[in-house]
């Protein structure tokens, strides 16, 4: 921290928008969190931002769930129950668990804390251009890879190019859309189609420790995107060496290395030895063991109950009651933008009639779904996938549930006699997904829609998740609403499971991404949200809280909205 502060002081230049933000914050137009978040994004150091904010706001936010009174102890092994999934190339990760293992050995340019504030990490600072189209990242000096090489701009450039290489297939493509261009390509039959390719020269190595990226259009959330879980910075030779982090754990800069890894069983991370010198504060734990307790969530809690693990990755909602009643176990909870989004592909019958989709939205009782399926733990949402906990959220007028109108719409669409639809659900995150659909089934039944619940095994669900007409997909938390909308609803992005395609939406989203002015941005976001809501491409009833449970002897641990494991300060009090 101190180092960062010094760097900032040396830096001298502050983004011109920071002053406006300070102004807004002082006037009370901007809440504290938003101020911190935005100013840090614009390059102000977190410390400086906090210092500034604190002058106006007496209460300090707790960065982690509880500030530990006791002195941290070094050493010890943390055993965490979590699925040990197959991992190879962090760039193509599609699941947070994978990144949690690699997060201990590979680091990111930036780091977003549980407070949604993004701080420097491998990039000791970043400087956006005034138009937010050019971002200069200053790479921290003296960062060592596990193999002894020093981190340079080359490594960063190689990584960014890999993310955007269509042959790699990273979801970063959706994140860094503004670095892409549509060019002519060919599909497998030789037909001409448009394919997205990185704009030549959009990544630029300025010097050995400076990388600059050029965007087509402004994007405020670039630093946050740099902490998106596939964006781990790896050694430049990573691809040549097989693009498998489990085989080459020394190609990361993190403090730990992977010593044992068996998919479905265990991953053991140990503090890097040899001549390795970690650039930051040494972590407290000697070893981190991820123990796979299977796909069955109860097994995880059972393991925690019987002391086989000290923490579990996530506490299934169904186990909350049990965990709360377990002596020696602490439950951590945080509101997030995680959600079970029941998106609708509007191309196919009967969904190609917008009245059907609207009727579904009107018949759905989002509040009841939250209350019943998720035990009320979360926030009611408004079918546009932007969460009130996200700074760019703009409140929209509430739309009340209206079964009568839904019936009317259905009748208009020619389904007055009833409608039979099916929703796929994979329980990829837990039983609550099915429960949510079951409640929806009841809601829709009131409007004369018969919803069949098609429960399928998780893995099978992932085969069809973006193909079926109507399914419930679990989306994880992202610090900014725009980030999620960018990967999930922009035309043609790989994860656009609703197959949503709206020029208006795309443009608005791009605009929002490049707008720093809070008021203006909120206004644009309102339009973005409204667009999504009006197009009725999803029933997105609520944003859920996530929970995990740890043994009381684990100190300094909390729950990150994205379930990212940031454990450099975690220690064991045995």
């Amino acid at each position, binding site marked *: 921290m101190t180092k960062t502060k010094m760097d900032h002081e040396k830096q001298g230049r502050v983004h011109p928008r920071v002053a406006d933000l300070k102004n807004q914050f002082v006037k009370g137009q901007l809440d504290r969190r938003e101020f911190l978040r935005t100013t840090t994004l614009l390059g102000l150091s977190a410390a400086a931002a906090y210092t500034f904010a604190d002058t106006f706001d007496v209460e300090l936010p707790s960065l982690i769930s509880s500030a530990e009174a006791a002195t941290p102890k070094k050493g010890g092994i943390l055993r965490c129950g979590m699925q040990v999934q197959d991992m190879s190339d962090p760039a193509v990760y599609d699941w947070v668990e994978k990144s949690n293992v690699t997060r201990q050995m590979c680091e990111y340019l930036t780091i977003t804390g549980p407070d949604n504030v993004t701080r420097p990490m491998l990039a000791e600072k970043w400087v956006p251009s005034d138009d937010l189209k050019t971002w200069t990242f200053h790479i921290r000096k003296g960062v060592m890879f596990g193999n002894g090489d020093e981190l340079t701009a080359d490594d960063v450039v190689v990584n960014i190019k890999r993310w955007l290489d269509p042959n790699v297939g990273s979801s970063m493509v959706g994140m860094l859309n503004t670095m892409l261009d549509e060019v002519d390509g060919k599909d497998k039959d030789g037909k001409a189609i448009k394919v997205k390719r990185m704009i030549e020269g959009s990544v630029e190595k300025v010097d050995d420790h400076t990388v600059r990226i050029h965007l087509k259009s402004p994007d405020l959330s670039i630093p946050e995107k740099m902490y998106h879980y596939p964006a781990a910075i790896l050694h430049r030779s990573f691809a040549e060496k097989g693009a498998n982090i489990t085989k080459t754990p020394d190609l990361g800069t993190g403090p730990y290395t992977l010593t044992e890894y068996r998919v479905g069983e265990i991953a053991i991370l140990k503090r890097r030895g040899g001549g390795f010198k970690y650039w930051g504060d040494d972590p407290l734990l000697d070893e981190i063991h991820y123990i796979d307790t299977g796909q069955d969530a*109860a097994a995880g809690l059972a393991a925690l109950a019987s002391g086989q693990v000290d923490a579990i990755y996530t506490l299934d909602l*169904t*186990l909350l*009651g*049990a965990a709360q009643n377990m002596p020696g176990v602490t439950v951590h909870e945080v509101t997030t933008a995680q959600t079970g989004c029941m998106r609708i592909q509007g191309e196919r019958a009967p969904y190609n009639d917008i009245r059907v989709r609207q009727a579904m939205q009107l018949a759905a009782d989002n509040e009841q779904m939250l209350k019943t399926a998720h035990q009320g733990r979360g926030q009611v949402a408004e079918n546009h996938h932007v969460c009130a906990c996200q700074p760019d959220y703009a409140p929209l007028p509430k739309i009340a549930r209206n079964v009568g109108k839904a019936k009317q719409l259905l009748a208009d669409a020619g389904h007055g006699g009833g409608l039979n639809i099916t929703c796929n659900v994979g329980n990829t995150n837990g039983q609550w997904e099915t429960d949510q659909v079951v409640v929806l*089934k*009841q809601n829709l039944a009131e409007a004369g829609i018969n919803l069949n619940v098609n429960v*399928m095994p998780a893995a099978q669900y992932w085969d069809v998740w973006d193909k079926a007409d109507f399914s419930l997909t679990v989306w994880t938390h992202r610090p900014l609403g725009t980030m999620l909308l960018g990967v999930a609803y922009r035309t043609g992005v790989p994860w656009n499971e609703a197959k949503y395609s709206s020029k208006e939406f795309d443009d608005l989203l791009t605009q929002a991404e490049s707008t720093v002015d809070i008021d203006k941005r909120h206004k644009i976001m309102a339009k973005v949200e409204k667009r999504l809501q009006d197009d009725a491409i999803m029933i997105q009833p609520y944003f859920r809280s996530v929970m995990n449970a740890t043994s009381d002897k684990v100190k300094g641990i909390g729950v990150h909205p994205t379930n990212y494991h940031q454990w450099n300060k975690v220690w064991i009090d045995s």
Partner: protein
Amino acid sequence: MSNIVETVTPAPTLGFAFIRAIKSFALLRESTPGMVGAGLVLFWVIVAILAPLIAPFDPLATLQPMAKPGTEFVKGGTFWLGTDHLGRDILSRIIFGSQTVLFYAPLATVFAYTLGILMGLAAGYHLGWWDIVLSRISDIILSFPVLVLYIIIIATIGSSGINIIIAITFASAPGIMRIVRGLVLDLRNREYVAAAQTRGESSLYIMLVEILPNARGPLIVDACLRLGYVIITIGVLGFLGLGLPPPDPDWGGMINETRKMAMIFPHMTIFPCIAISSLILGFNLLADGLREVSLRD
């Protein structure tokens, strides 16, 4: 005399079979376990039939989540067995769940039996190539561990009521075929079969009229056991999340949905466990009793 003519029909009809079945069940009185089993099964059958009348609540309605057994509901009524995590009355779900299980299990068993009996008759009566081909096919199916087979089938074709019936039919028919084949191999050497052959009866007639009715004893016993096993299978599939689609109450599914909460709300899991075990026990005891009685006969 003429009324005798009316009552007598050339081949045994369903009515006759039914009366005979009733008679053989009447023999059960002599077996205490058999009576207990029949009682359990009958209990659940009655529960299933009267479900809409006796269930205190709508099994799908979300009323009051996680109520403990005996909780009074604000809008009237009592959750005698509590409610589940979605606030659905467990008693009502168990009551309606009996409909599900007593619909799918017997249906699947009937299909399995139809196929198994046809295969067994063909193999056991014709022998030769029929036998070799059918026996080998069934050997191969039977050489799969049965649950593995179910999981592969269900995971491949998806889980729905029909698919579960298909899977159970597919996986149980060979076992039934073996039993039928064994019985047919014995029965086909009976002199009344030879008598039918010597009067030029068709194979189908001999198989269905002369042989099959006489194999019913062991088959009924086996059917009871198999029903129990099918119920377990449906339960296991539900437990593994491959069962009948929610929200219709299915005991295995109920256990699966709530078992994680079993340590804090044991009622959600234990009552469906008791329900399913008691029904299986009923069928097993019934089979035992029938076997005992048939041996004594």
